[in-house]
């Protein structure tokens, strides 16, 4: 099975280790992983800022790069949501291109969703020990119904205890460009999220979307919390004791 990894621009720039963890997870599950070199961004930042053209341009690039894959996997619910949901009506004037995009979108999955629901993985190879709490990122949760998938995988790790926070489904305030345009509201929202996460008693806040994680970590550090760790779920699922 040939699986294309859509790294996403945030992972590419901000936390490459998430991409490598995703590769490990897919390889461990027996997938042949390809990483098309010319991939960049799914177009969501521009698309959500009102530039439909951003979506169109990058949807076209996406289909050209990944069409030959059996599946495409991204370590992000938000980018996957962009592809699976919002790529669907970008080319009303070009039905054949739209059809190609839609067919590929159907084969595009968020990482944990792919591991659980396509590959039927129920065990991962991780030495992680400790208490974690899981933040449900909005697009993954509400557009793709990702809720149990990451939890199922996390719970399969022997040394890991999942401590649910209150309001796990509450938005952290990231919202892409929202976090810059309306930074003061975003800060207040991340404040609330951080408080709930801290109250859970977990040492690590885990999530499936890097944008949210950077937002949460940034607020924690600004508030002076330098101990609570913030990790992508892929990093926990592939954690190796040193």
């Amino acid at each position, binding site marked *: 099975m040939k699986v294309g990894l859509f790294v996403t621009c945030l992972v590419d*720039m901000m936390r490459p280790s998430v991409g490598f963890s995703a590769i490990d997870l897919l390889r461990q599950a027996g997938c042949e992983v390809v990483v098309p070199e010319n991939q960049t*961004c799914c177009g969501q*930042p521009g698309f959500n*800022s009102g530039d439909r053209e951003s979506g169109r341009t990058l949807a076209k690039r996406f289909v050209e790069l990944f069409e030959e894959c059996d599946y495409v996997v991204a370590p992000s619910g938000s980018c996957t949501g962009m592809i699976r949901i919002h790529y669907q009506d970008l080319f009303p004037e070009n039905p054949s291109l739209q059809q190609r995009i839609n067919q590929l979108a159907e084969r595009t999955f968020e990482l944990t969703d792919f591991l659980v629901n396509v590959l039927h993985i129920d065990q991962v190879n991780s030495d992680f020990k400790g208490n974690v709490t899981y933040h449900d990122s909005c697009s993954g949760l509400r557009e793709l119904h990702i809720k149990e998938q990451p939890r199922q995988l996390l719970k399969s790790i022997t040394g890991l205890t999942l401590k649910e926070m209150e309001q796990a489904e509450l938005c952290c305030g990231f919202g892409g460009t929202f976090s810059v345009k309306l*930074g*003061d509201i975003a800060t207040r929202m991340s404040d609330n999220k951080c408080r709930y996460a801290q109250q859970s008693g977990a040492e690590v806040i885990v999530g499936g979307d890097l944008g949210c994680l950077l937002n949460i970590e*940034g607020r924690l550090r*600004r508030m002076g919390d330098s101990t609570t760790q913030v990790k992508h779920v892929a990093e926990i699922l592939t954690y190796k004791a040193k």
Partner: protein
Amino acid sequence: MELTSFTFKKNVKKKLSDARLQNNMRRFGGRFVEARAKVMQEVDNLEDIRVAAAAIRDRSLAHLDTYLTLFEEQARQRGTIVHFAETAHDVNRIVIEIAKANQVKKIVKSKSMVSEESGLNDAVINAGIEAIETDLGEYILQLAKEPPSHIIAPAIHKSVEEVAELFAEHHHTPKSTDIPALCREAREQLRPHFLSADMGISGGNFLIAETGSVAIVTNEGNGRMVTTMPKIHVAITGIEKVLGTVNDFSTILRLLTRSATGQSITNYVSVMTGVKDAANADGPEQSHVILVDSGRSRLLGSRLQQALRCIRCGACMNHCPVYQNIGGHAYGWVYPGPIGAVLTPSYVGLKEALDLPQASTLCGACQVVCPVKIPLPELMRVLREDSFADGLRPWHERLSVHLWRFTANHPKLYGFLTRYVVKLLKLMGGKSGQIHWLPGLDGWTEGRDMPAPTGSTFRDQYKAQRHER
């Protein structure tokens, strides 16, 4: 209502630093959310009902003129006078005309958000007629001279302490913060007005076309008072509020009250048809319905048409993490929260409310709870597209979108730029690995650090790894 949506960002700053408001909003927090979640458990086929409710609203909109015509015919047959108002201003004019023609001196009002659109109270009072809000929340706000901050709980931003101060000042009674006592005080203050007013004004949650009826949904009983006791009743509502049948109404009602306050049904649901006749012991002798357009017809056939399904339950704002933090006043007009972020720019003009469609992370919490399945995030995105296309967004925002699109579409350029950007960011992060200030992204770094990247991109690391092998 005075429009301040164009200063949204400034409003937000003020609201976020208003300690009393923040305190009140925290208390408001999850109560409606919890109540709704609990009551929905008794509806085991919620999704079926939502689909049906959305279809009922869509059917009304698809045949809007036919349904309105039928409503008009049926209502007239029962002696109701039907008026049409093209603008908010026309609403005020029509009300004042009816009042003047009948020598009305005192009006009692139950809650009507449409009348807030036109600032009806001020207009009526300026015309020399007394107008008294009778919904407890609206009454409090009338004393405080403030607009509502929520469509079903208008005084949600006020604490009991503030209410106690207002009542003591206006009723000349000793100050009490006992909530039941305050409610009784309001009842005693308002009862004489119900009995002496010559006109009652209400909103209309719905119109029912087949019977020519106006339906209102209330808890306090003030709605029944203003539509029963005075000799004239005027209902004001939007043209989009028409439903086909009493059965359509029953379906929608099943979701409205549960979505709004988390009640299976409100204490009172009144379906009013025509005037008091020989067959009646009580009720108004004159019945008027004012059907308001004021921007609504413009949405028909547009990409925003689904917003007209709205049944004004308020669930979208109750569940909106942005609303929960800034309250309703920051939105600067009658309708706050996600539905307000769509309706305000649509009704008053996008230029006047440019930041409202941006005031959302598009988290989708609103869409999930909307009883009539309005795709609110999608509609906010449509408005973002309109403002981008019309060049209404700031130049630097447009420029960065264009630059990013161009860069992302040229992988070599993208690879080159990102390589150096992450190096620079790593440097800026220093020893702590946290960037405290980023030019151009100070909206972020004002309140949060930016965790610094590790110094090289995934694509470079991946390439190097493959090379080694």
